[in-house]
């Protein structure tokens, strides 16, 4: 298994590094050039959100962790914000609790738009998406087809 993991202090400046790494590893994993922009944007959104989760927690020095894995014919990215949160119930998850603001509604308050636009972008970009929260932190997991190369043939 070819895994790359990036950990960084929850600071906005490192989100770029995460985008850079994700795009470079995705390209090498054989993700289509046309999809790389999506990967870059999605991982950036997930990391921005993770950094934002740390904003009001001055004493919290847990890092954000980005795990890139090109096993099983897919390129997957997992972003863990490192902020322990109450787990969402299955029922709430099924309803997409708080994940998808209804931005198409004219009356949608622009405050909501500002707060939830990150997830809206991810939801709009990524087909294979999984969001979980728990004592280990909030985790966004996304994956894309990684083209011909499998982890075994690389290297």
């Amino acid at each position, binding site marked *: 298994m070819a895994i790359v993991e990036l950990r960084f202090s929850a600071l906005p*400046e490192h989100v*770029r590094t995460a985008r850079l790494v994700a795009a470079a590893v995705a390209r090498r994993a054989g993700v289509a050039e046309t999809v790389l922009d999506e990967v870059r944007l999605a991982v950036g959104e997930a990391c921005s959100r993770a950094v934002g989760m740390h904003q009001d927690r001055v004493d919290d020095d847990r890092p954000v962790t980005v795990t890139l894995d090109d096993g099983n014919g897919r390129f997957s990215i997992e972003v863990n914000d490192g902020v322990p949160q109450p787990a969402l119930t299955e029922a709430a998850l099924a309803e997409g609790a708080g994940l998808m603001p209804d931005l198409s509604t004219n009356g*949608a308050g622009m405050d909501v*738009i500002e707060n939830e*636009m*990150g997830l*809206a972008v991810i939801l709009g970009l990524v087909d294979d998406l999984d969001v979980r929260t728990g004592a280990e932190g909030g985790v966004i997991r996304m994956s894309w087809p990684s083209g011909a190369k499998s982890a075994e043939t690389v290297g």
Partner: protein
Amino acid sequence: MDLSLSTRTEGGRTIVEVGGEIDVYTAPKLREQLVELVNEGQFHLIVDMEAVDFLDSTGLGVLVGGLKRVRAHEGSLQLVCTQERILKIFRITGLTKVFPIHPSVAVAIASSD
């Protein structure tokens, strides 16, 4: 690549030319710029995004914030953007319904708001 910002006035509008990456790290600079313009009494803004390489939701948030500020003064905030990958982000988030988006600064100036 970093964010670049330059402003000029033309046809009674203030044009903010943005270049580089607008993300969680650089967006605060764009926010400051927009706040400053509004504080100076410039309420009709055109943000030219043709030189933007990367835009994320933090950048969108700053633009929405700018729109709210100018609207509070009966102003306007229009965008210039023809790059498909940038337009896509406005489309995904439904913000094409919120911002007037034009193919050039000239068209943006010519448009009645």
